[in-house]
């Protein structure tokens, strides 16, 4: 007996799903922003050459890289109120968890990009008398940025997919909206197929855009 697909059940609730997708995008963009900001600081600490800075940063990145993200979602949502009496709304808790965990990954992306620039570039800059900050900004970062682009996009996609864990905090992002629709329509197959399709369309278009930008950057660099 064949299953009879009924996508109208989803179509009727498209507004809920799209609202959820909007929240997913919002959480993703904010998550990337927080992750990049903290990740930048972590990378700077690790590259500082001072143990008092690099070790804590190393411990932080390793901890968040090697623990499951859901734990951190729960910790910020359920743990923080118990430990510190600080209650965060689902969005803030999810953002905090995403932010700190992706910071650990972004820090590695930044550090890897910067370390991939040959020592000769540092030496050439220093030999001109450039200070550290200027050397970083004028010589190292422009070159590192190109090499960071691909892993950065990759990590950002991971982050977008990880935002779905916020459903566990009853945050109304795409998956949570899907669950709501499923309980109303009993059409999980259709609903989750559409959800997969939505993520695919968004991420695939984003990756095409990123590739185009990268190719353009490469052409500009090899002029």
């Amino acid at each position: 007996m064949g299953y009879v697909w009924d996508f109208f059940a989803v179509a009727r609730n498209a507004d809920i799903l799209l609202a959820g997708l909007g929240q997913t995008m919002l959480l993703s963009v904010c998550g990337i922003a927080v992750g990049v900001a903290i990740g930048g600081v972590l990378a700077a600490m690790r590259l500082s050459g001072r143990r008092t800075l690099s070790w804590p940063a190393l411990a932080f990145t390793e901890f968040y890289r090697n623990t499951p993200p859901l734990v951190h979602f729960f910790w910020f949502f359920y743990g923080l109120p118990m430990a510190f009496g600080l209650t965060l709304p689902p969005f803030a808790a999810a953002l905090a968890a995403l932010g700190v965990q992706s910071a650990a990954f972004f820090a590695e992306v930044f550090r890897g990009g910067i370390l991939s620039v040959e020592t000769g570039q540092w030496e050439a800059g220093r030999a001109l008398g450039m200070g550290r900050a200027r050397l970083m900004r004028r010589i190292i970062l422009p070159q590192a940025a190109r090499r960071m682009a691909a892993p950065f996009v990759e990590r950002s996609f991971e982050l977008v997919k990880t935002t779905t864990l916020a459903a566990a905090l009853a945050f109304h992002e795409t998956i949570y909206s899907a669950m709501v629709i499923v309980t109303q329509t009993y059409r999980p197959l259709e609903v989750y197929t559409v959800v997969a399709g939505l993520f695919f369309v968004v991420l695939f278009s984003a990756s095409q855009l990123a590739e185009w930008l990268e190719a353009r950057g490469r052409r500009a660099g090899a002029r």
Partner: protein
Amino acid sequence: MTVAGDVVLQVEDLHKSFGSTEVLKGIDLSVRRGERIAILGSSGSGKSTLLRCLNVLEMPTRGRLILDGEAVGKPAAGGATRYREAELNRLRARVGMVFQQFNLFPHMTALENVMEGPLSVLGRSRAEARRTAQRHLERVGLGGKADAHPARLSGGQQQRVAIARALAMDPEVLLFDEPTSSLDPELVGEVLGVINDLSEDGRTMLLVTHELGFAYHFATRILFLHEGRILEDGPPEQVLKSPREERTRRFLDRFTAFRF
């Protein structure tokens, strides 16, 4: 203030160790303004390390560095010297360096490479930096390549841009570390030609090289380095043709073993 012949760079009892291996074992050297010094020595004798100590890309472990009568760094315990970053940057701006691997900035055009120092270290205006950069590129025969990125240039052209980049800082002392060693043989001549042409400026230059013929014609003075010490120091005629030390003779013999 800048009289030809006065001492521009003085090195006293310079030591450099990497971990427990001492690479420079006490270098004393007095460089007069306008001197062109070729530094010879076998691989591992410390030639690069010596040059890199002169612009403090490597921190000397011990000893003093005096540029234009001013000691670099402050004395600290145990004969060591403490250096402040800002002071080192100022020194490096006055002591130029040309590397074996060119180390051009790949994300910048030839012109931008040459402009970078004047622009971001000397604080020149963009227009002025551009003007002098163009002049220096023309000087090394690359006026037409201003807009080319390094990847589009031959090794010899890249090294000439690197020389222009160093010249644009108008350094008091210019250091070359085997500037032609990573070039195809047919490109060596164009780079040596450019370096030789710099002689007419009267700029102080120190050059590490394995090109004995070039050293003979270019240098006013030759140092032979052996195991971290200066073993021989004199005019090219004397060092290359009648070296005092057996070591120097053996080193030179290796270059003249095959003749045709």
